């Protein structure tokens, strides 16, 4: 008998049964909702995000501010680029790392940054996971002064930025550099955690769940010394959220 079988048998026995029985449907958990229902809930969540953009953006601004983001609303691509450059200059950033999010190629960021004399590197998948490549990518993230990413989804309820690490979106980019700048497109703001997990569940049941997901709500913080809140214990000390309210979005 394997360790697993023995372990689960003991649980079954403790539950007063002799074999595993299938649970009856229960209102509280979503596991009994089938793929069609889950898919339509996910589609609805995405539709709502587009339909209520203005309201959701206003809520997002408020709750992100509460969570500790420095929130900026910009009217166009150029303004966003200038703002990012000025944040980098404030921090005297010499080395800036950015993700391969498409929003960062929409705004004329690369040219603006290089004009300001900053070294910019883009995290793009170059070689198939050689150890050398992994080490290089890690050390870039630990050495960068500023990390710039897009936003996969935002959550208005909590002021949260959601990022799925993947090719071109490194796990450390939004964590290791002392300053993180996240650039948000207005249509990607969801109302609450309900909508986010509805989308995740829809993705899962359709075989499209991504490898991992990070919800980020403000700067890294701790209150472990005498209950005093201090920002920047392991992650960024300062986080900026830039909302690009361009007509094209």
């Amino acid at each position: 008998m394997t360790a697993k079988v023995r372990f689960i048998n003991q649980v079954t026995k403790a539950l007063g049964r002799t074999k595993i029985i299938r649970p009856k449907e229960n209102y509280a958990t979503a596991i009994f909702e089938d793929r069609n229902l889950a898919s339509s809930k996910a589609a609805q969540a995405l539709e709502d995000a587009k339909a209520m953009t203005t309201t959701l953006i206003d809520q997002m601004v408020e709750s992100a501010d509460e969570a500790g983001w420095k929130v900026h609303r910009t009217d166009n691509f150029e303004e966003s680029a200038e703002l990012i450059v000025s944040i980098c200059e404030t921090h005297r950033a010499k080395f800036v790392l950015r993700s391969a999010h498409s929003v960062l190629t929409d705004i004329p960021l690369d040219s603006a940054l290089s004009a300001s004399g900053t070294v910019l590197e883009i995290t793009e998948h170059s070689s198939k996971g050689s150890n050398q490549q992994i080490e290089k990518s890690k050390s870039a993230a630990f050495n960068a002064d500023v990390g710039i990413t897009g936003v996969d989804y935002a959550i208005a309820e909590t002021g949260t930025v959601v990022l799925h690490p993947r090719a071109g979106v490194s796990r450390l980019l939004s964590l290791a550099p002392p300053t993180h700048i996240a650039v948000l497109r207005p249509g990607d703001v969801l109302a609450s955690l309900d909508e986010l997990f509805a989308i995740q569940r829809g993705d899962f049941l359709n075989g499209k769940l991504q490898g991992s997901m990070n919800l980020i709500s403000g700067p890294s913080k701790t209150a472990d010394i005498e209950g005093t809140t201090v920002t920047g214990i392991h992650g960024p000390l300062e986080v900026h959220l830039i909302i690009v309210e361009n007509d094209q979005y």
Partner: protein
Amino acid sequence: MKPLTINFRSKAAQTIGDEQVQNSLEHVYTGFYRGRLNAAADTHNWEELRTKGKAIKDHTIAHLDHYLEMFSEKVEENGGNVFFADNADEARQYITELATDRDIETVIKSKSMVSEEMALAENMNESGFETIETDLGEYIIQLAGETPYHLIAPAVHKSRKDVAELLDKDFADGDRVPDATELTMLARKQLRDVFARADMSVTGVNFAVAESGSIVLVTNEGNGRMSTSVPRVHVAVMGMEKIIPSIQDLSTMLRILIRSATGQRISTYVTMVNGPKTPDEEEGPEEFHVVIMNNGRHKLLKDPFLRESLNCIRCGACLNACPVYRKVGGHAYGWVYPGPIGAIVTPVITGLKDANNLPAASSLCGACHEACPVKINIPRMLLELRHKTAEGSSDPNERTSKFAERAIWKAWRTGMMGRGRFDWGARLAYLLMRPFSINGWIKKAPPPISGWTLSRDFPLIAGESLKSRLNRRRKKDI
């Protein structure tokens, strides 16, 4: 971790007499307790969320075997490994062997109460792996060579001065005590170096999603994210009760957990891991292991009165609400889990015999029940454990009541069951008690019952029963 529950009274007395620790414990009330109340008041459907959270956990625990099987199959499908550990030794052995096999040098640990059950960091260090706690509170505790004081704030009892001395002896020199920001930045610097060279991580699990084989970590500091990004091997350790069925259930569970733990609407980071790094990712752990541990939890599961304690999501709200915890502190409870929930879990897992003071250390005021985000009826279970203590158990290793105690109750029962025996007993008690009484009250009883009169007086039993007094009066009247 070796249980030290037997020292409850002395540890509690020590904490109550320590002014500095008493001041530190104040934060548990002003910070966490009030924070939770505010967060609950700000959430329009708070009671609905609690009811739903309880229903999700009730359902999952009632079908734990089914969901454990589903979860482990999914983790393996996603390219991870699952190890089922019956006890802490097995779990620790698996992790240590894995580290040896993979030529690991440095292990970073995120906060995990389950790993405390295995005393993992201590043991890994002894086995020659540099193992560092990365949650700031846990890091401080590790430097001090202690155990966590609180589920959420492990170093809540340490002052800035203590922390300064622990982080860097030179830093604490002179009269000036560094502020919290300076100390945090110093720790950041020290731990950054550790992160950069770590090749394995051990994290806890806040929720394990059965349908997708995902694990979810909730942190404010970001050490959980470092642990799931930097090292090439990631080991997540969990108690078997951490399962929830569906991804969608996370929205309910995260809301109640975080609001109840710190009063935040959400923690800074919530990380969901669905397996090892994907092939096209630049970095991230290439290996993902989940260790699911029983370690006596089946005893809680088996007992219909205590099963509900497995609904616990380890938010610490009951600790913050508990007037006893806020005075006696976390170390008095003598094992990994302090406070009201610890008073249930610890005696069952480590043995009621040495831990019978724990369920007794409660005024049954109900504050823990009221605070619990999944509505665990802690006072009811404390009573159940007291009942077990008084009744004793058929298992001599678990037997808690002493022979003398059982003999006294037996004598009491015999005495109470007949009028003559009762009168005779009452008379005897009167004669025995009289020498110790002043004006009808015993202010200071002799040993072994001297403890009883420490804080209250005992009335002297009447020398004559009501019945005999009435009889006497009636005779006089005639």
